């Protein structure tokens, strides 16, 4: 394996959310995380996670769309990199392996 690929729980969640959201920038990513996990997500935590994931090479970002409702400030859009996808797959696979055979317990009725 080229890189150590173990994602923290939150990083794992953030990468999944970035994949889910079209035109992923912080606001909708956070909204999705809260909606799907049912847990509050601190903005600060999200920003640091995004920054960290970008620094690790799991995410790539571009600045675009300075908008009026944003007081002329651009949005920062994120997309998954190949390394990010590998990390996501590895983590997901590891968890899935661990969970195999426990479906009866893990799946809620």
């Amino acid at each position, binding site marked *: 394996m080229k*890189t*150590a690929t*173990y994602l923290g729980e939150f990083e794992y969640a953030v990468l999944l959310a970035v994949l889910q959201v079209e035109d992923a*920038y*912080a*606001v909708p990513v956070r909204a999705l995380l809260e909606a799907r996990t049912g847990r509050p997500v*601190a*903005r*600060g*935590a999200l*920003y*640091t996670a995004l*920054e*960290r994931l970008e*620094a*690790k090479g799991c995410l790539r970002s571009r*600045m675009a769309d*300075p*908008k*009026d*409702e*944003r*007081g002329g*400030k*651009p*949005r*920062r859009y994120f997309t998954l990199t190949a390394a990010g996808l590998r990390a996501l797959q590895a983590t997901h696979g590891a968890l899935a392996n661990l969970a195999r055979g426990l479906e009866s317990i893990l799946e809620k009725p």
Partner: protein
Amino acid sequence: MTSHRPPHLAERFVAATASDDEWSDSIVGDLREEYAVMIDRHGAWSARTWYWRHALAIGLRAITVRGKRRPAGGGWVSGADPSPRSGWWAGLGRDCRYAVRSVVRRAGTSAVIVVTLALALASNSTSLAIVDALVLRPFRFEGLERMLVVVSSDPQQFPLDRSSVAPADFRDWRRDARTVQWLSAAEWWDANLSGIENPEQVAGYRVTADFFTAIASPMTLGRSFTADEEVPGSHRRAVLGHALWQRLYASDPTVVGRTIRLDGEPYEVVGVAAPGFSLPDGAAIWAPLAKSVEGWNERKRADLTVVGRLADGATLADVRAELRALADRQREAYPETNRARLNGVLDFTTGMSDASAGPFVATIQAASLLLLSIACANIANLLLAVGAERAQEFALRLALGAGRGRLALQLLIEASIVSAIAIVVATPLTWGALELSHRSIPPSVVRFVPGMQYMAISPTVFAMTAAFGALATLAFALLPAWHATRPQLADTLRQAGRSTTAPRQRHWLRHVLAAGQVAMTLALLFGTVLMLSAVGRAVDGPVGFDKENLLIGRVVLPQRPYAEPERRRQFMESVLARLQAIPAVTVAAVTSNLPYGGANTGRELFPEGIDVPPADVRAVDYRRVTPAFFDALRIPLVGGRALNEGDASGSRAVAVVSRTLVERYWPDEDPVGRRFKLARDGAWITVVGVVGDVVQDWFQQRRRPTVYRPVAQDPPFAHAFVARTVGDPASLAGDLRRAVRASDPDQPILAVESMEDVVEDRTAGLVFIARSLAVVSAIALTLAIIGLYSLIAFTISRRTQELGVRMALGATRWQVVRLTTGQGCRITVAGLLLGLAGAFALGRLMESTLFGIVSISLWQLAALTAGIASVALLASYLPARRTARVDPMIALRSE
């Protein structure tokens, strides 16, 4: 809608904390976007609050995270092990951050540890501050290390008798000694200062001319004394203490050259001492020590305090050698007076500090150290429990490759963080305790305890507290850290949270710690109870007289105007007559020595018809009283008659004696009519009556044989008026003062107080120690009980499933309670057995070091043991009962 701008300052904060401009723009933009939505939904005010809250949260997180970011290019590795490229230091930084988070996460546990440790540390730093002020550094002035004290008593003796040098011995040393400079002497002299609004007695010393030079104390005003003022006739010069000068003369600089009246004679003020200078013994006024040639030839009476300064190049050992040689020579030349005279040279602090402070302060310090040990045991147990809970976390990190030392180090860092907080919390606690200490010690005691003014939080004390904190941290954290990080990976991981009891060895350690706490608590409590009962005896115990409703006024008549005994007698009669005239006074009397008064006068007693060999001659307490004295103090007459007005100066010499004296010399005989002498060549004195015993002082609980003689037959200079009053004696203080002033306007009255105050003053130090000990012990007991309770509760909570199985299989509640309480019982019994041994040893130590005021009581020990046992059993029964009540099915399912 877009016109609504978010709070400018908050936005600036977010922008400034972002890691670069792009991030700053995008985050600010995101927030503006959401802010606009918030305004639409909730209004401007809510939106602003919302914005502030989130801006601060984002910014603060960015700041805290900033420090954690790994250097660019560094691989990203999960927290267990430093990556190869980041050095050990970087790893340490990460450990610290992790430790902070861990401490914050377990806020409850951390708070308990902080409070426990802070209490113990505050107790220690308080007693350290007292030790530092009273024992280690009671004197603080320049050149202190070259100062010394010379005594003619045994320097090893306790308490040291520093006023023990004969004038002629001193004169010889001053003339001959080469290794010591400015050898100078001081003689106790409490001067009556009059010519001011209220004449008063001032603590004073007569000193040789070099005294101020020796101590290198500069004068605030004027000069110190010169050699030619050491001659009688030109000796009427005085140096005022700085505080006295401020108080009585309003810091008037023209006071130098003015004449003041001391002991009824005019003295010229030549100087004012430096602020704070009050040597020896809280002196507030000084005059030259002037002696005639005969006076300087005196070898028999030895009551000078001698201080000096090391000559250049000389050491304390040189002075010792030289003075020993000089003393040997004196011993040969004057065997009669000097044969048994010892010679000691001490450093200034040892020689001048209050000797009795040592053992008392040591008692508090020892108790505080015990408390700290108990606190450490408590915290260690808590950490072991936490460690058991965190076993999974550690096992995982070990499995991922973290070194064991690394994990232990991280636990140590966590402990250090908590300790640091505890040290900070302990500081205000210490301040409060010292403030209370200052208030609880009366000024009359302070005078004789040098260094009291230094009782405060100094950098030294803080540093020592920190050192204690660090030591404590090592003590309570090392063992749990070692245990928690023991690599039993497979076991712990396999357990996967399904826990029963902890591994046996860990169990064992925690039990030892809990038992140790019980043991130390028992010892500490016993020591406290011993102290408290000693104090109880001293303050409230039977003293042989009725101390309530007694007004006391102490007077010291000056030597010269009252040289004639008849004048002293007239003064006393005049004051007594005025006192008797006060309606609220039922009886008024005079005594030379007040019980609990501090001063004692002894005489050797030679009974008629009994041949006492010189070695067996015993001293008895010698008191001179007016006939009404026994009435005033309500000392019962046991046999014969009391003194009466007929026992005047010209009539037969008579005495009333105490019961103990009779038991010693005339057991089973009628003592009335027996005669004795108070010196081998003295006159015969006839016993006319016997009275009950009186306790003279708290540290001499034994009833001492006492002789009471009529005041008229030997009027003393220093005496006390005693008036039994109807109602509060304090309300008559003014009348007593007026009575004295009317009899002699120059005569100050040293102190007017109630007899209860006198007793309180004398026992203040003891009460202070006892109260401090009580506080320390109460904290210790609480900690120990909480420790035991939480240990049992924790152990049981880990065994809930097991207990559920047992109950499901048919165990009764009682059996479950017995099973779990039994463990607490074993710990308690082991602790108590250990504690009994400790308590007994401590009691013995206190008996031997605290002037014999303490005596071991086995009843108290038994009662304490039973008390602690029942509280401890309760502490282990409660959690057991709670578990036993739980439905077995719930217990089985619990985790």
